[in-house]
């Protein structure tokens, strides 16, 4: 029983970290229909900014997080304007080529500017060290990540389902021409949702840095994980992504606990099984 709880706690923490990092990709891929392989690159940029702010400038953690999100969005705006805008609605393969190109450039530049070493983001004292749960201990920052995950999920759900921005976004995505005819400024909506996605990526990059440390190859190293999580959840579905993250987190954690040697098999066979049963993802929107 204790083993079960122990796995459950780890699974929840890991799943939530995955969720925070990947959810931005669900927005670009599901709502904006862009296969954005550069998602990890934006998360990494966020991580670098936070690391620079907190470690080198000695700013407070919370401030570093905000700076990372804002800074990454500022960097991303020209990319959206000049590059992404060209590939909205383009074939998937073209999008893959473009976003891989962007990823390569970001990696190269990060390597040049920050060097190849690992960069950490110093945590405030409250988030350091283990917290005792009685039957085991868990890192305080993981509890923080779980909280962030819940907050992001609720916030996004509210934004997309309950606000006028959400209505405009969904309308623009479903039928750009019609939305434009109804007076929605679709370019602005797209730019705004892109900024949202990038901001989420940066946020996730910072929050998840304890588990996925920031270094230049971050952008490629975890790309597959993000892609898998989002697709299994069903691109564009917030609850879907949440369920997928928790499910895959649970599968991964259980696999690594019970049969670590075959963890990789366990995980990817599970992915195949899930996609086999839900070809559109768990809660995917029909195209």
């Amino acid at each position, binding site marked *: 029983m204790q083993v079960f709880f122990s796995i459950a706690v780890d699974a929840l923490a890991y799943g939530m970290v995955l969720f925070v990092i990947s959810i931005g990709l669900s927005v670009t891929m599901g709502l904006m229909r862009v296969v954005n392989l550069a998602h990890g690159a934006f998360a990494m940029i966020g991580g670098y900014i936070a690391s620079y702010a907190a470690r080198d400038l000695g700013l407070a953690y919370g401030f570093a997080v905000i700076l990372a999100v804002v800074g990454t969005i500022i960097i991303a705006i020209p990319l959206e304007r000049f590059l992404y805008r060209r590939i909205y609605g383009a074939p998937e393969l073209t999008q893959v080529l473009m976003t891989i190109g962007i990823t390569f450039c970001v990696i190269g530049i990060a390597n040049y500017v920050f060097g190849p070493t690992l960069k950490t983001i110093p945590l405030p004292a409250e988030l350091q060290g283990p917290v005792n749960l009685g039957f085991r201990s868990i890192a305080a920052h993981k509890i923080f990540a779980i909280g962030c995950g819940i907050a992001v999920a609720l916030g996004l759900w509210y934004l997309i389902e309950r606000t006028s921005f959400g209505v405009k976004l969904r309308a623009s995505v479903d039928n750009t021409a019609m939305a434009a005819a109804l007076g929605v400024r679709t370019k602005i909506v797209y730019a705004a949702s892109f900024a949202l996605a990038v901001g989420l990526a940066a946020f996730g990059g910072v929050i998840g840095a304890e588990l996925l440390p920031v270094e230049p190859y971050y952008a490629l190293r975890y790309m597959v994980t993000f892609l898998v999580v989002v697709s299994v959840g069903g691109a564009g579905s917030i609850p879907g992504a949440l369920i997928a993250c928790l499910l895959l987190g649970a599968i991964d954690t259980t696999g690594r606990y019970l049969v*670590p040697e075959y963890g990789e098999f366990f995980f990817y066979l599970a992915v195949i099984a899930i996609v086999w049963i839900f070809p559109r993802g768990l809660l995917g929107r029909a195209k």
Partner: protein
Amino acid sequence: MKKLILAAAAAVLISGAAYADVIKIGVVGPISGPFAIQGKNFKAGIDAYIATHGDKIGEDTIEILYRDVPQADPAQAKALAQELVVKEGVQYLAGFYFTPDAMAVTPLLQQANVPLVVMNAATSAIVTKSPYVVRTSFTTWQTSAPMAKIARERGIEKAITVVSDYGPGVDAENAFKSTFEKEGGSVVESIRMPLSTNDFSPVMQRVRNSGAQAVFAFLPSGPTTLGFVKAYNENGLKDAGIQFLAPGDLTQESDLPAIGDSAVGILTTFHYSLAHDSPENRAFVEAAQKAIGNPAELSFPSVGAYDGMHVIYKMIEATGGEQDAQKAVDAVKGLSWESPRGPVSIDPETRHITQNIYLREVAKRDDGTYYNKEIKTFEKQPDPGLAAAK
């Protein structure tokens, strides 16, 4: 026509050997990609050697050509080595961070009449693949086995091994396990994790439940070690008094600033610490830090490269700049010298480096930086891996 080309190519090669006052050395390593920092260390070690010893040996001048194999890719490594030999006319091949890349090149050496100086790749068997291979780094067996003795000395009866599931990880597991059991300890469990593991919490829970007094771990140096060491602390293993043991790959100097306090107290065995106390090492570190640019990026592959250059210089001296792989290799068999890591020699049988292995503990300096503090020395350790394979 074909004959003509053949003759022309041969002529180029021969002339390259006979009259060259430029001797080319081809270095293959991960210069870009996720392991770029290790390629940088190769370059730093080589540059440091040239900076301190000059680029001339007698009449001849040294020229280094770098080729990039970002990740283990034997086919690419072989194609590049072939190109270095055939097109660039290099007389020496060196570098090689990954074992498969080095293995792939060994079949070329005989025909190309070129010695290969392995500056990192740490699987024991490489030296057996060709008589022209010399290695100046270490093997995973060499650095892992002494740790088992330390564990027994410190009264540990039951240990658990946790390694990444790939060649070097399996080597480390076998080295520790066989030595530990020979010394009378018992390994209660051996866990192999996929290389792609990000979250080590579940593994730590298993370690905790296994009842072992110590955990012996091996992961490739780089981002995952950070998560692993942190998970060790955060899951309360440190507080529970489970001793962390590992070969020094886990606490390489370039990762230490990131791992930070979590690493303090970890025991590792390795062939080289940047903090090794000797005049040779101080000179080396100074030169290498200058060469690499950012001192924080300096790590163990640099010393393998530095000593590799020493071996190549000796080979060039012995052959007088002629291209003669056999003579070159013979000249360094049994060669011994004072390396930055301590006294070393090339085993004439295996052509692998015999060296001291140090027990180190991660410690914090007064200025807030971390280092591997040497606390015990195992002198003149050969590679036990080859014997174990037999």
